[in-house]
């Protein structure tokens, strides 16, 4: 009978039991989570470990000592070819263009002087026919590798005409 009256005591036991159960559950769960995460960390560290990779590197490096001369030749060859390629790409060669321009000369015309430096060709020609000089000038102007032509001198003497052109090459 007295036990039945003591409602407070009975009421506080149940929530306490539940709280104990809950907190035990949480503690087991947290232990389990920590264990799982620890295993994961271990596996990831194993996966990212560089020990075996470095061992292999050492082994391959040792094998490569048998090929030192071959490797040196390969490296030097590649460097040399790369350098030659740079020179070929950047060196100027206007001989073909200059040859084309000179070929525009008629049989009555002669080259007095010419100079080609960088992208500029300066050429003096002489002819008995002004028409030939004009023809030469027009053909030079029409050449696709020529960006500009300046007539810097035109004169005549003793029945012959001479002309100096400054030709800008592309």
């Amino acid at each position, binding site marked *: 009978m007295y036990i039945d009256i003591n409602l407070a005591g009975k009421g506080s036991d149940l929530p306490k039991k539940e709280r104990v159960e809950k907190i035990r559950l949480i*503690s087991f769960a947290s232990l389990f989570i920590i264990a799982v995460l620890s295993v994961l960390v271990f596996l990831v560290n194993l996966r990212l470990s560089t020990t075996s990779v470095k061992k292999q*590197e050492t082994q391959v490096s040792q094998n490569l000592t048998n090929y030192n001369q071959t490797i040196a030749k390969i490296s030097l*060859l590649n460097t040399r070819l790369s350098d030659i390629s740079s020179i070929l790409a950047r060196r100027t060669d206007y001989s073909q263009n200059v040859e084309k321009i000179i070929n525009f000369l008629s049989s009555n015309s002669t080259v007095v002087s010419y100079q080609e430096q960088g992208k500029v060709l300066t050429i003096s020609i002489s002819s008995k026919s002004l028409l030939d000089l004009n023809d030469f000038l027009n053909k030079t102007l029409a050449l696709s590798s020529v960006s500009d032509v300046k007539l810097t001198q035109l004169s005549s003497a003793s029945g012959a005409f001479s002309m100096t052109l400054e030709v800008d090459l592309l």
Partner: protein
Amino acid sequence: MKFNLNSEVSKETLEEIYEQNKIFLAPAATIVVAILLFLFFLLPQFFSFSQKKDVSDVENQKLTQLKNLQTLASSADLTELSSNFSLSSLVLPPTKDFEGVLNTLSTVANDTNVTIESYQLEQAGDTGSLASFPSIEFQVTLIAAPEQTMQFVDELSKKAPISEVQMISGTDTSSSLTIDFFYKPFSPISENSDPNARKMNSRESDTENTISNWNLTSTEIINNQPSSQSAQESGSPF
């Protein structure tokens, strides 16, 4: 008396609290330890994964490069490699190749029916029209019409040592050329980590084909071997 009562009460209270709650102690301590482990052990490990991955990637890349180099070196045709190396060293010699230059001028003059009236060494220092490529400069006078001179220049562009004509001037019967002949000493090679110790790329392969097609005859190759007497630096890295 009062003091003793208070301490006795306090002691009894503590004991009572302990008795009531001792069942919670172990699980609570477990949770606290778990939290501490997570915060001070697991979390730093998680943060370090990215850095470890980067290090691992770098090492794996190194290993791949070394393995590729091993494959390349073990499968290389040594005869072809030596031949290509000789050809490239002929075209761009490691030293000032005066003998090679003179031989080439002579050969080209013969091939284009041009007479060399005179030649003169202008500069033998490390001055080049192309940046980073030292050269020796020659002034060459030819007995040649302009067309022949252009043929001479064109033919010279496909000979060794590789050259660049800086200036051409002349008249109807003679011409004067300023020509740079390039050379470049060998660079030191670092063991196994040299970036050029790899398979030839397409640009290098094209260049190799180009200079192979220059038809440098065996006579020229023999005559134009880099001259040791003109060398100030070592002509071979071996």
